[in-house]
């Protein structure tokens, strides 16, 4: 029987999941970078990540039937993960916004010298950034009647993918900002080189996570897995997600790592970044589309007649 993909939440929600994940991932990368002492690339990553998260919420609002009433979504945090997510994402935007405004632009000097305050603010932002990546997995993961999502590994997969697409966003934005503003330094180049190696490992983990995920959910959601592996979504899954989104960036990063070339001049991170972002978006889109409902069980009507 041909099964149709899930069609309630479509590309707008996928775009939100992707952009919020990318932004939060970039914030995570930036804060870790600052803790490791890479100040300028950290500033670039945070100044890219926080607006990306803020921008992503526009897709959520656009998807609403009554967009002007979006603020009502915070009314039921007791049981609804949309309300909880509203608070988590708002907290990330606010605390991340403070870090951006007071450290990067326009009041960059405020936190530049006050290391303690900056570390504290960054720690808070870091927590909410991780929470943003994870809650989206819980948001759809708690739905028991959609077994493809109803799996504890989904938030983990979303977190890995968010950090990976965050790195992709940093790869994409850092060389551009560096060349436009003329701040491409050896510090940035070292940072990107380290990120390339880290992302290579992360992508291998992501591949393993996707494999594990499909194996785990197969028993309960064979239709959804079939849809991805050989159904309507198979082209996007094999060619798009696994090929262009995972394999190509791993190969690019591997060769960049092999040749040890100076990343600030090379195009490798930029190209890898584009593929990473593409793969991240496809992953959200495919996971959303594969979240089909369990079939309804009607008790079988066969008569057991006496004497038969």
């Amino acid at each position, binding site marked *: 029987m041909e099964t149709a993909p899930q069609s309630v939440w479509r590309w707008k929600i996928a775009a939100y999941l992707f952009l919020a994940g990318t932004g939060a991932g970039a914030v995570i990368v930036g804060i870790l970078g600052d803790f490791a002492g890479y100040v300028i690339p950290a500033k670039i990553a945070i100044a890219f990540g926080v607006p990306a998260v803020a921008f992503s919420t526009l897709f959520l609002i656009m998807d609403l039937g009554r967009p002007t009433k979006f603020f009502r979504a915070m009314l039921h945090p007791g049981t609804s993960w949309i309300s909880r997510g509203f608070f988590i994402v708002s907290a990330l935007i606010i605390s991340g916004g403070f870090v951006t405004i007071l450290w990067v632009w326009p009041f960059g000097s405020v936190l530049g010298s006050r290391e303690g305050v900056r570390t504290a603010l960054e720690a808070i932002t870091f927590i909410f950034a991780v929470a943003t990546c994870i809650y989206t997995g819980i948001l759809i993961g708690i739905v028991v009647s*959609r077994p493809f999502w109803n799996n504890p590994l989904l938030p983990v997969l979303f977190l890995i993918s968010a950090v990976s697409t965050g790195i992709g966003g940093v790869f994409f934005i850092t060389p551009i900002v560096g060349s436009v503003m003329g701040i491409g330094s050896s510090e940035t180049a070292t940072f990107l080189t380290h990120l390339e190696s880290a992302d290579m490992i992360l992508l291998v983990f992501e591949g393993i996570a996707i494999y594990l995920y499909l194996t785990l959910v197969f028993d309960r959601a064979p239709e959804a897995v079939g849809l991805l592996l050989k159904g309507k979504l198979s082209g996007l899954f094999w060619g798009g997600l696994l090929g262009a989104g995972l394999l190509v960036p791993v190969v690019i990063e591997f060769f960049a790592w092999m040749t040890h070339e100076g990343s600030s001049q090379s195009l490798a991170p930029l190209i890898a970044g584009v593929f990473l972002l593409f793969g991240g978006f496809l992953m959200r889109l495919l996971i959303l589309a594969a979240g089909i409902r369990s079939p*309804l069980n009607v008790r079988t009507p*066969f*008569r057991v007649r006496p004497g038969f």
Partner: protein
Amino acid sequence: MPRWGMVIDLLKCIGCYGCQTSCKAENATPPGVTLARVEVTEVGTYPNVTRVNLPLLCMQCNNPPCEQVCPTKATQQREDGIVYVDEEKCIGCKYCMIACPYGARYFVEEKRGYFGDQGLTPYEEVGYEEQRKGVVLKCDYCRHRIDAGLAKGLTPGVDREATPACVINCMAKARFFGDLDDPNSEVAHLVARAQAFQLNPEFGTNPNTHYLPAGRSIVSTEPPTKPPQKE
């Protein structure tokens, strides 16, 4: 306080779609919205397979997942068990449609009539007047009929005026409605039968809509009786 419930006998259902049509007439739902619907499905495992007409509507779960995920408290459960959408509060996030295991919820994207460029018919104009666009609709057991009937002193499930439209319109009399908490009601008797079942109870929803199977399994411990001999 009663707990309204419905029993649908799949053995009696002939798949006439009368419930679907009467629901549309009663609630004036726009195209694409079928609060009561009939799905023709295949059940069983080969070679014991058959097709079954499966009338579906909101199961009015005692433990409704749609109510739990609603971020605006637009979906609420009344004390009599009926789960309904307060269209004023709904913002159209569609999380409830994701959470509902039974596909009983519909998103109204725009106010659209059945006749395209001709515009709305007078019936549609009246029917759509109170409806909003950009919200999610669901079956609420025709709570307007129940409430109006109760106000007149009628009994839902017994008096036609106080009973959901799909139930009174069922020409095969496959649908039963009443108070599940009243041990003397018809629905309570039917639900008490061993064969009565709820759809996908493993989701933990505990629906107030129950079904009777399309064939009765007769489990007998007595030896088979011989057919009467012809003289």
